[in-house]
């Protein structure tokens, strides 16, 4: 394809077929693809901010004692790292960017059900994000409570907790509205022939996620309002000297924040379920089981929050019940892993960048999930709770899981929307560096946790020094890989070789329309005649 041809293809795409240009054609657009890219750049921008903060944390922990900052700065740093990564990147990230970009096309729709509400969600998200950022530079300085905002500490610290929780509260509405929008869209706007059992698994996972967003987020909102009321009005709801209960706060917080972990991981599982079959040229193994397991995780995952609290002093009966339910929720995750691996069997596997990130997701998520069994069992959790073991486990699931799936999705879908692609070799190099650095960083953390190093420690005993240095070295390898990936990916998307047609050989609907897609998505309304992974049926070799 020559340059002129690319330009003519781009002219008939959503980039300029409406004839509108300039910033207002983006920030006031109701096109799901433009909103998707708005979400992508805003959430991914915050991801990079979070990465920088994380690297600073690792530099401080490189050696015992003061390395580059004081204790108060360090405490603010890990708090802001957590708040930014969780509330500004990973919760809104997948649904907002790839959910918006891909889901309506995957079901054969022109747009989501409520396009203006969709734009409004992004605006609410940005307003919330600005409030969170404002909390860093005003009042008593950035919050120093950890992203969990545990009372009574969060009620008495002099830092700017109230403004930060207000920001998170506002962002919550964005999450609820996106959830409502997606549930309605998937119910009402599926094209003719797009039955429930022909939905791509990414869309299935967004459907399960959307329900958690609708049902769980209001509880976080209420909890955060109560924290603010505790600080500003002195309500005493969590203060034992006034009849309150600090452990009740933890229940309320985790009633949302554990299901939120599934908001973060389910779309990632969906991406992997879409990518693995495409690069194996084989239907996904056990489609219905994977779809059901997403719903099972969404349902059972809402009932396991107490496993964050085995040592809190809640009753042993509660420990018994929550430990049992936690192990139950492990089963649907295991089913997914087995199904992904079996999909590879007798396929024709191509190890291109999206597949490499996808396969490493399976491995890293497995390590994270299996270390979660240690945390689910009451006896062993007590030792590793609140140590670096938890930090390692969480990053295996959230970064090795969702993060790597996000990178997979970036390499898999972004070329579709730009009509240009990245170079393959640097992408593979960046993947290899990130995979290596990741394991050096977070596996070491799990070992440190087993040895008893508590989390959120600014300083530590000399016995932990060697492994902390190793972990910090890992963080630099990881960062080097990330830089190469970003340069290669974005250089490719903006100036790279043309990307047209269906080079991966996907059978889902987004691969049947022009690249980049036109604003209307489908020139004629599609009629779906085959399943999402029926490669033979859709004429892919």
């Amino acid at each position, binding site marked *: 394809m020559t340059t002129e041809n690319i330009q003519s293809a781009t002219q008939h795409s959503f980039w300029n077929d409406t004839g509108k240009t300039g910033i207002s054609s983006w920030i006031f657009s109701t096109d799901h693809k433009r909103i998707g890219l708005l979400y992508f750049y805003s959430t991914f921008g915050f991801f990079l901010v979070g990465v920088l903060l994380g690297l600073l944390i690792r530099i401080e922990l490189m050696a015992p004692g003061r390395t580059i900052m004081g204790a108060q700065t360090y405490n603010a740093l890990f708090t802001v790292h957590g708040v930014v990564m969780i509330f500004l990147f990973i919760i809104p990230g997948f649904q907002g960017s790839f959910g918006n970009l891909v889901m309506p096309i995957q079901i054969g729709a022109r747009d989501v059900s409520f396009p203006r509400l969709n734009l409004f969600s992004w605006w609410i998200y940005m307003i919330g994000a600005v409030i969170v950022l404002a909390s860093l530079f005003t009042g008593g300085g950035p919050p120093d409570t950890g992203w969990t905002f545990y009372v*009574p*500490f969060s009620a008495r610290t002099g830092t700017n907790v109230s403004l930060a929780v207000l920001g998170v509260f506002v962002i919550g509405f964005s999450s609820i509205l996106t959830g409502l929008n997606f549930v309605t869209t998937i119910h009402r706007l599926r094209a003719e022939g797009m039955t429930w059992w022909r939905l791509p698994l990414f869309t299935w996972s967004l459907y399960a996620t959307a329900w958690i967003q609708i049902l769980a987020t209001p509880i976080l909102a209420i909890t955060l309002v109560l924290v603010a009321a505790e600080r500003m009005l002195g309500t005493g709801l969590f203060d034992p000297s006034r009849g309150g209960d600090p452990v009740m706060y933890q229940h309320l917080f985790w009633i949302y924040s554990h299901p939120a972990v599934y908001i973060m991981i389910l779309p990632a599982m969906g991406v992997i379920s879409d990518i693995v079959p495409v690069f194996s040229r084989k239907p996904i193994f056990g489609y219905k089981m994977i779809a059901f397991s997403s719903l099972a995780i969404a349902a059972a995952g809402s009932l396991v929050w107490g496993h964050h609290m085995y040592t809190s002093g809640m009753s042993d009966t509660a420990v018994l019940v929550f430990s049992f339910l936690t*192990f139950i929720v492990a089963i649907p995750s295991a*089913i997914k892993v087995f199904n992904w691996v079996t999909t590879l069997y007798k396929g024709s596997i191509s190890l291109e960048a999206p597949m490499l990130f996808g396969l490493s997701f399976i491995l890293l998520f497995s390590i994270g999930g299996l270390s979660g069994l240690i945390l689910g069992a009451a006896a062993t959790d007590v030792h590793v709770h609140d140590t670096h073991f938890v930090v390692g486990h969480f990053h295996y699931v959230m970064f090795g899981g969702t993060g790597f799936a996000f990178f997979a999705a970036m390499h898999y879908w972004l070329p579709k929307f730009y009509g240009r692609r990245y170079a393959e070799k640097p992408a593979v190099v960046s993947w290899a560096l990130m995979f290596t650095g990741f394991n050096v960083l977070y596996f070491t953390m799990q070992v440190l946790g087993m040895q*008893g190093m508590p989390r959120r420690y600014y300083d530590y005993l000399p016995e932990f020094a060697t492994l902390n240095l190793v972990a910090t070295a890992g963080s630099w390898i990881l960062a080097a890989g990330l830089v190469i990936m970003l340069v290669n990916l974005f250089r490719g998307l903006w100036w790279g070789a043309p990307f047209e047609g269906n080079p991966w050989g996907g059978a889902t609907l987004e691969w049947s329309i022009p690249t980049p897609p036109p604003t209307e998505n489908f020139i004629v309304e599609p009629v779906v005649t085959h399943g999402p992974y029926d490669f033979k049926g859709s004429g892919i070799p």
Partner: protein
Amino acid sequence: MDATRLISTTEAIDPVFMFIFGACLVLLLGITAAMLIFVVRYHRSRAPQPTSQVEGNLWLEVVWIVLPTLLVLAMFWYGWKEYLVLRTVPPGAMEVTATARMWSWEFSYANGRKSSKLYVPVGTAVKVNLVAADVIHGFFLPAFRVKRDVVPGMPNHAWFVAGTAGSYDLFCSQYCGTGHSAMITTVEALPAGEFEEWLEHDRGGGDKGARIDGEKLVREKGCLGCHSPDGSPGVGPSFKGINGRSTVVITKGTERTITVDDAYLRQSITEPAVDVVKGFQPIMPAFGDLSKEELDAIVQYLEELK
């Protein structure tokens, strides 16, 4: 003496770790090996076309639902059973009360003896009653696999038994602010005889006439977590040269300049929120429960610190 030796918390918990780690290792190696074998064997260079388009297999699905279910239920039950060991204090355990505050530990014994390290006799179960003076802390003994949050207004406890004499780390595990990582001390396990000697010595917070070491107290009460003795910046004003220093304080919202003297030092320890030094947060907990001798010793130490 009871002839049957106590099962220590470590002996109860470690086999659970071994069991879960072992099972996880087998699963992880299996998953990794299967992935690697498939990726190599069915790479597009060797398998240009897929040789199967199978969409599922009911029996395989049943197998990998049932087997993991049995496995995780075994982990659950084993974990629960040994958790009960942590929760069941053996009869006749010695009781110690641990008071956690930002950012220090204080252990008090039945006879009134107080200490900043947790001294215990070897071979005797120790029940630690956990009391929080301000925010939530965590009582964590890695060597004994014991952890319990210290929650304001809620009676919590933990128990352990030291099998051999020695010094073991004691960490605060629940994030509690600036001095969180400095809120560490040790368990000192002494042979029974030595422990009795220690317990009886210096009973009730000091023999009359014996000089209390102010410097030691300042360290033990956690003051140094925020106030440096050498002039380096911290969460609170440095102790170095504090006596006689002219400083701006905020009293009920209005600024005034004072000169630090004996009375101001005493008031800042027992009622720190009254006059807060400008530029610092009003977060210091009140130390109203110090004895007169202890307060005298601390103030004397501060006044002498040039």
